[in-house]
């Protein structure tokens, strides 16, 4: 058991551990980070890891990379309880929970094909964000996205 645990949490020198990801969302987190296939650094992904609080969770570890604000905002939309651990020289240099922004711009595509944000007009999509559960309301056409948010991320 301990060997198994050790393998899952093998320490990294520098990078980011994204913990407490909603079970089933790890692949979407990789997509947000642009990791689709070939990638230069070590990436570890664990799915459906037993968790006392959550029942199950996913974990993603990326070596030699710290995340940008836009990436954190996108992760918060699909997994608002995720925590970010910044690792520097094997130490946890910083640890925090992702925070849902009040508004997201240019991150999500509106589900309404007739929305002005889905035309050739020079307009960036804007959504108001509501919590528990996460709901995105398009400020242009007022359509609400509640399900499969990952599918609508730009």
């Amino acid at each position: 058991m301990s060997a198994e645990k050790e393998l899952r949490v093998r320490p990294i020198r520098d990078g980011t551990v994204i913990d407490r990801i909603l079970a089933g969302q790890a692949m979407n987190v990789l997509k947000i980070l642009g990791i689709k296939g070939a990638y230069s650094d070590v990436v570890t992904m664990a799915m459906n890891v037993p968790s006392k609080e959550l029942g199950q969770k996913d974990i993603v570890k990326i070596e030699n990379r710290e995340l940008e604000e836009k990436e954190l905002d996108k992760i918060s939309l699909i997994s608002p309880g995720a925590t970010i651990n910044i690792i520097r020289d094997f130490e946890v240099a910083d640890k925090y929970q992702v925070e849902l922004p009040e508004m997201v711009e240019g991150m999500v595509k509106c589900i309404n094909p007739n929305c002005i944000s889905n035309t050739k007009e020079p307009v960036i999509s804007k959504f108001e964000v509501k919590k528990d559960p996460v709901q995105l309301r398009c400020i242009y056409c007022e359509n609400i996205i509640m399900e499969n948010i990952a599918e609508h991320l730009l």
Partner: protein
Amino acid sequence: MRFERRHIISMKDFTRDEMDYILDRATKLEPLARGGRSDLLAGKILALLFYEPSTRTRMSFETAMLRLGGGVLNLGSKEATSIVKGETLADMIRVVSTYSDAIVQRHPSEGSALMAAEFSSVPIINGGDGAGHHPTQTLLDLYTIRKESHLDNLDIAIVGDLKYGRTVHSLTYALSLYGANITLVSPPQLKMPDQIKADLKARGARVRETENLEEILDSIDVLYMTRIQKERFPDPTEYKKMAGAYKITIEHLENVRDSMIIMHPLPRVYEIDSSVDTSSHARYFEQSFYGVPIRMALLTIVMGVEV
């Protein structure tokens, strides 16, 4: 009340006090709307950007502007403009706002009026954005109800396509601010979405639903009919059946309140039989006229002219 240079995009931008202010202004201007001319907006220019067909909205804005002594710029047919060359709405707005003091816009995309407001240097008045908002229709509906019936303690039945109809969503929102008793009458497949009903109740409206138009006719002050589009029904037999159940004829009016009025945003198709037109309850043509004083009021307000 601060309205000058403000955009008119959605009824949700208005408080009840602001709605009352616009209705009061329209009351003052109504005699002028019935015939006459003033120079309140002399030297001002209103641009009409209609990317979709419109009869009442476009013509009543034109009438309103002419009665107030102002001028009107019309986009004309799409073929004669740079739209055919692929010009964006954003560029069109940037340009036309330098030619005019306000712009009335109708465009097929939802959210187009809000986007236009981001690019315009003059007030944008939303004359309909796809299935989105049409605030001046709601204001003229409120004006009609206040003038021909009453807004306080109102019992109103709204009939037709309550699922997709933009007019209905805007109107029920506004009526909820007046604490109206709203009866929603529709076939099951065109019921008002639950979220909208919950919002209405949260704001103070009392809402009930029925599929049976006849059972509620004797207990209402206003009967607001709307058109149900044939396209909503994949089965033509189903459409025919439904069309019969939501049509009002003179026979239906035997037991209604004497003061009950019938409204319709027009154009009507089958929903109101022409036999109703001459009854004392019909108000849909007056309602259409009230678009003029309401639009006169809005134009003077956004252009910052006192009346």
